[in-house]
């Protein structure tokens, strides 16, 4: 019995190792590339032979990358704040209030969750050029917040639904207006859910590529994923692979740290909306 148990445990341990390796392989490879000296870049070695920070130094010297990094952070942050704010309001209404038109809202956000972004690229390209939004921050913030709103509304309303109804009734009887009930009772309880949602939305915005390459044309609003795709390297004679890898690491590491720090919440957030609906 004990031996079977041990063999069992060993089996799970192997499975765990396989899973971890599976998850980390490409990350390691891009990290390895980013530390490779230009002379060994093409050696195909799994571990760098000559370590160097040059690739990082190189990209931070070019405005192409630093400007894109600022764009990425700024655009994703603003889109996250707006999407979470609007999503919180709508999710509260969906989870807590009775009003006609609720089904319509749920249907609309479901529709957008399934919407193929490419379908919007052509018309948005034309509309934004006409409105002067093309190649600006707002030009990217708008589609980002729109496409993350359904995510925000679902996740948040799932969190809101877990707050017991009676609390709001109690607040009302205690003399609160519906708005006060929201601000003083529900909002503080919902804060963890809001925070989780913000992480998910930020990752979503941070990850986008299609809008970033379609709705920008210069450095003024191009985000890192798009900039990477247009990298030419810090010097003409250098293969851009090292720069691309370094830039990739710069936008990957903070997200991974974030994900690791808040993994429990992220798992809860990712699954709550989908399973409980």
């Amino acid at each position, binding site marked *: 019995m004990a031996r079977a148990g041990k063999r069992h445990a060993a089996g799970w341990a192997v*499975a765990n190792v396989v899973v971890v390796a599976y998850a980390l392989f490409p990350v390691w490879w891009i990290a390895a590339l980013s530390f490779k000296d230009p002379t060994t870049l093409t050696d195909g070695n799994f571990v760098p032979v000559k370590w160097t920070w040059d690739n990082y130094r190189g990209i931070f010297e070019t405005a192409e990358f630093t400007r894109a990094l600022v764009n990425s952070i700024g655009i994703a942050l603003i889109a996250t704040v707006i999407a979470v704010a609007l999503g919180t309001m*709508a999710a509260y209404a969906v989870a807590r209030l009775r009003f006609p038109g609720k089904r319509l809202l749920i249907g609309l956000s479901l529709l957008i969750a399934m919407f193929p972004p490419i379908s919007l690229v052509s018309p948005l390209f034309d509309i934004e050029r006409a409105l002067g939004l093309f190649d600006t921050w707002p030009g990217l913030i708008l589609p980002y917040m729109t496409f993350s709103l359904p995510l925000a509304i679902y996740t948040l309303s799932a969190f809101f639904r877990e707050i017991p109804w009676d609390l709001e009734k109690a607040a009302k009887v205690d003399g609160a207006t519906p708005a006060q009930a929201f601000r003083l009772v529900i909002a503080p309880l919902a804060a963890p859910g809001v925070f989780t949602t913000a992480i998910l939305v930020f990752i979503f915005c941070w990850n986008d590529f*299609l809008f970033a390459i379609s709705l920008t044309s210069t450095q003024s609003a191009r985000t890192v*994923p798009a900039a990477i795709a247009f990298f030419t390297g810090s010097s003409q004679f250098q293969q851009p692979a090292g720069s691309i890898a370094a830039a990739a690491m710069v936008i990957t590491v903070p*997200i991974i740290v974030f994900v690791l720090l808040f993994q429990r919440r992220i798992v809860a957030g990712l699954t709550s909306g989908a399973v409980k609906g």
Partner: protein
Amino acid sequence: MPGAAAAARLSAGARQERRLGWLLCAPAVLVMAAVTAYPIGYAVYLSLQRYDLRFPDRAEFVGLGNYAAVLSSPFWWEAFGVTLFITVVSVTVELVLGMALAMVMHRTVLGRGTVRTAVLVPYGIVTVVAAFSWQYAWTPGTGYLAALLPAGEAPLTEQWPALGLIILAEVWKTTPFMALLLLAGLALVPEETLRAAMVDGAGGWQRFVRVTLPLMKPAVLVALLFRTLDAFRVFDSVFVLTAGAHGTGSVSILGYDNLFTALNLGIGSAVSVLIFLCVALIAFAFVRLFGAAAPGSGEGGR
């Protein structure tokens, strides 16, 4: 008319609640409508025009001409076939792998946290970054994986190997998400029910097929629906890995190329609308055929 009477008798509280509900939803609805409904309508309008960005003055109404051009073009059908292939294969593999992963996460006791954390890494990574990693890995010269292949092989320049690698990149990136959704579904299966099945004489496989799967069917369907729609929109990985060359372009790539390479807004919009219709059809089929509980449909009445 009890309805009218009730409406007339709505107390201050209910009226306040109703107004607050509308007020709270209004900004979200306005944004969503302005950024999606209006452009998609505009896309339909554009798709009925001959509208070449190089010759903006020659724009004119051509009816369904653009659609005829797209649907009679081999490029559309190739892209459509490629997209369908990528979607079906990657979602199938993801489902199987994701289920296995979910089981590992559900059952394992030791190092549970490590596995969960590791699994979130692909989710957190920017798709483009992952795609570059795969690209370099498979490109002769920079790649460790390409080095394992016979000399002279460049998998990303041949249709089938390239498609396989695109699917690999997609599967790597999204299996964790699938696994997490399935894990949440697994958690809905009561341990006691499984014990009861064990006492009733069901083996491991029977328990999985006859108890676990039916009980987590809603979670599976929701995960499948979301992943299918997501896979059908595949763009980032294809763009980075092959840029759609060698017969690997998805419909999204086709739409993008029509707009930015051919600079043809009319045709590009027609492609956009067609993709939108495909996605709507898939979603409809899921809900109809499998009765997938669309998230949110359950609470509509509340």
